[in-house]
């Protein structure tokens, strides 16, 4: 089971449930709040617009209906009509001015009537004396907000929308100080278009003096009508709307929140269950299964998870079965190898014994043959003819050769069977080499070979068996002489590497050995094909390798085809190998 990788942030972890709830709640809140705000804005705008439209209509109606009365200054008639308008709930005051701005009539209800009638009425009205810049378009009234503060009027130049007071409406339950919208409409002479009424149009327009341009419908201004509207009633309506909107928004948010919580739980619970199941699976319990709680993607995930677990379980079972059978097969194969190995060892032993026995059995008659042949060549058995002598000499050579082959076989079998006596002592290599060279002096002379030996006098003794080392260098030198051409050169060097090893090299000027043959050259009976018939059993280098390794050394080869070969023999120094050896033995 692998260790669980710790998450990047271990101090705070926001679960899926939390994320869903938090972010969805934020979205719901933002959406509901935004919609609620826009709704309230629109309500305020509608209410404000409606109030102003009503006031505009009233002002226009008053302007039209009192047009002539204003023109002729019929204050009685005007006042009668104003009284009717003041019965409307949200109309606070009505003011009528003449064309030059003079106040004709001013009347109002609640505080306004008193203001107009009060001593301060003159001051109050004087503040209204400067008429606002009323446009000449009756459809485009001038609207301003008016407050009464300490008995004085104050025109509020800010937006006439009730939206400015929205917060106050929402937060307080107390009665707000009403504002007033002053709607001013010009009193204009009527238009005399009457395009579809020629009788009326011509009566109004046809000038008595036709030379002059006919009377253009004049738009003379007769005066201005101000209608003041209180927003108190409207504020109450708006307050009610705000509270309803807040209630509805809150309800929507609450319902949304409940929905979010339910949905988050529906989403996160199966995932948590699946996580727990996966953890148990990780622990190796393949019997666990997730419970698909729904038919949606999460249910699909649970079902797919179960399929995966089932598949894993099957694979696990197969692996275990495979593992078990594998172990059995390995054991079986190992046993088989052991048996084979034992058979091979037995075969080897049998082979070695066979070789030894055969060699020994073969040497006995061969020795007898050699003796008799020697006797015959010496004339002991009688005189021989020259041809007989020649024949016997060749027989002797072959028997010698056979004997050497048998000796080599016997030596090899003893080496491989570890039955060869090994009596190492400190040995001077130059003496060994000298003995060997003396042995092959005649052969060397016959081939006119030059032998160069370079052995430093300071060369330390090596630890070895003299006979074995003599055999090693005999084989190497004999091979060098054998493969060197007539008149060639044999070089012998010795070099001491530090205080551990002495390396002796034997180099010839023969045909050389290809690099691909280096591994084979030390195999038994392997003879490198030189193209000419060279005597030998093919065991010499094998014996050299066995004997050098017996001494704890190593043999190496360097060769260049066409130039010759060089064999290196590394032998351990006596002092290094056996420091307890007597000092005089190392001289």
């Amino acid at each position, binding site marked *: 089971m692998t260790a669980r990788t710790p998450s990047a942030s271990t101090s705070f972890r926001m679960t899926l449930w939390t994320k869903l709830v938090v972010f969805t709640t934020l979205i719901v809140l933002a959406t509901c709040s935004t919609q609620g705000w826009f709704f309230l804005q629109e309500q305020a705008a509608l209410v404000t617009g409606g109030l102003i439209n009503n006031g505009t209509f009233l002002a226009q109606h008053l302007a039209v*209906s009192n047009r002539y009365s204003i*023109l002729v200054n019929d204050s009685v008639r005007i006042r009668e009509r104003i009284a009717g308008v003041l019965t409307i709930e949200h109309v606070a005051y009505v003011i009528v001015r003449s064309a030059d701005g003079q106040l004709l009539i001013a009347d109002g209800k609640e505080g306004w009537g008193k203001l107009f009638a009060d001593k301060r009425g003159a001051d109050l009205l004087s503040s209204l004396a400067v008429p606002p810049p009323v446009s000449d378009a009756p459809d485009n009234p001038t609207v301003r907000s008016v407050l009464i503060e300490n008995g004085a009027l104050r025109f509020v130049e800010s937006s006439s929308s009730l939206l400015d007071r929205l917060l106050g409406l929402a937060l307080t339950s107390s009665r707000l100080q009403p504002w007033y919208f002053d709607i001013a409409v010009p009193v204009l002479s*009527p238009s005399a278009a009457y395009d579809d009424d020629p009788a009326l149009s011509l009566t*109004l327009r046809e000038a008595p003096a036709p030379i002059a341009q006919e009377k253009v419908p004049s738009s003379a201004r007769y005066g201005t009508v101000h209608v003041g509207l209180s927003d108190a009633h409207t504020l109450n309506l708006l307050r009610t709307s705000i509270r309803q909107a807040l209630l509805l928004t809150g309800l929507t948010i609450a319902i949304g929140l409940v929905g979010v919580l339910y949905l988050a739980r529906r989403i996160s619970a199966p995932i948590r269950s699946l996580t727990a199941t996966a953890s148990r699976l990780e622990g190796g319990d393949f019997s666990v299964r997730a419970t698909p709680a729904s038919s949606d993607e999460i249910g699909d995930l649970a079902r797919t998870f179960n399929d995966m677990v089932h598949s894993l379980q099957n694979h696990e079972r197969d692996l275990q079965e495979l593992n078990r059978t594998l172990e059995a097969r390995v054991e079986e194969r190992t046993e088989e190898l052991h048996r084979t190995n034992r058979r091979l060892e037995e075969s080897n032993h049998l082979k070695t014994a066979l070789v030894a026995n055969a060699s020994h059995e073969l040497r006995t008659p061969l020795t007898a043959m050699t003796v008799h042949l020697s006797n015959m060549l010496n004339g002991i058995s009688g005189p021989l003819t020259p041809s007989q002598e020649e024949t016997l000499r060749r027989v002797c050579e072959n028997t010698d050769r056979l004997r050497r082959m048998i000796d080599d076989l016997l030596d090899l079998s003893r080496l491989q069977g570890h039955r060869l006596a090994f009596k190492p002592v400190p040995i001077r290599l130059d003496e060994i080499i000298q003995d060997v060279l003396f042995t092959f002096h005649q052969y060397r002379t016959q081939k006119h070979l030059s032998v160069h030996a370079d052995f430093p006098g300071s060369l330390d003794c090596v630890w070895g068996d003299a006979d074995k080392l003599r055999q090693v260098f005999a084989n190497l030198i004999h091979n060098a002489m054998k493969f060197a051409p007539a008149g060639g050169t044999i070089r012998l060097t010795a070099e001491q590497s530090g205080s551990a090893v002495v390396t002796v090299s034997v180099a010839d000027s023969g045909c050389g050995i290809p690099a691909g043959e280096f591994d084979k050259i030390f195999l038994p009976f392997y003879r490198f094909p030189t193209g000419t018939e060279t005597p030998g059993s093919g065991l010499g280098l094998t014996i050299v390798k066995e004997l050098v390794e017996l001494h704890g050394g190593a043999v190496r080869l360097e060769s260049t085809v066409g130039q010759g070969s060089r064999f290196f023999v590394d032998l351990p120094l006596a002092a290094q190998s056996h420091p307890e050896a007597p000092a005089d033995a190392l001289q």
Partner: protein
Amino acid sequence: MQSLDVGFHGDAMTGRATPLHRIDPAASSKRAASRHRFIVLPLLVLLLVALVPTSPLVHGAEVAILKSADVTYYNQAVQAFRATLSPDTTVTEYNLAGNLARGREIATSLRGGPPDLVLAVGLKAALAAKLDLVDTPTVFCLVLNPESHNLPAPNMTGILMRVSPAVQLASIRAVAPHIKRIGLLYDPDRTGALVDEATRAARKLGLSVTAVTVGNSSDIDHALRSLLPKIDLFWLLQDQTVVTQDSLDFILRTTLEWKVPVFGFSPTLVQQGALAALVIDARDIGRQAGTLAHTILQGRVSSHRPSQDPLHPQLAINLASAEYFGMSPTRDVLRLATLLYGGLGAVAQIEGAMPLVP
């Protein structure tokens, strides 16, 4: 459109007016040929044409239309007039754009090749024709006070805009049979003759007419208030001193307050609360002018003749006003009425049927 074209659009003037709007560009050349062609069968054809008063005009006539301004009712009259013309009549239309001087220039230019007949629509066109087309038969229409301008001239005749007082009084009797006392305001300088005629006509019908003079529109207030208690119906004449933009609304409201119905001359006033009116339609005037022009061109009548009263005035009644005044026009009267109104106007407002604050 050529840059120097004149006439219909009245955009520019040249020394010689170039007719712009020709129904048949080759009409002048056809004219001579047609006259020769019909010389063998003239009597029968002319007899037939003469027996059918509404049949199209004499083939190949050239008619010039002088229009005082480009206003809706002038255009309606012109359109209706043109509909009475035969297809091969050459019609040239000129717009004075409210400028008498321009009209005189046009008339002067027409003298070079005078048309067979001139239709003058509106006062300025009529005056231009009177002053500068003295020999050309002219029919005028839609002139409010032709007598004030010495119209018609010897070569002219026309269609008046006022329905005769007798017809109006008859209508009043029909709509409001119980009415006995009729009051009116007038400026003697403007409608003195009309009032005299009305008084005579009323006497014949057993009605009394109380006429109060006003010198200017500021007198209306006092005059009306003094008149209203004495009358059963207020007769609003087409008097330019009484009827102004300012006084109309006042008159209507005051009479409504006093519950005195108003009989007028305008459908607009009926719509605004007057009880009824005899109104003229510009299209009817145009057709009547066309018929008159037809007879002149046929030679059956002379252009020098008295002006005609409108032959087809329309009765307009406000049913809501009638109900307000406690009247119930008979079914016959309602069948006679061409324009019926009900519900809109000051009556509904005062009754409170529609609140002041919608």
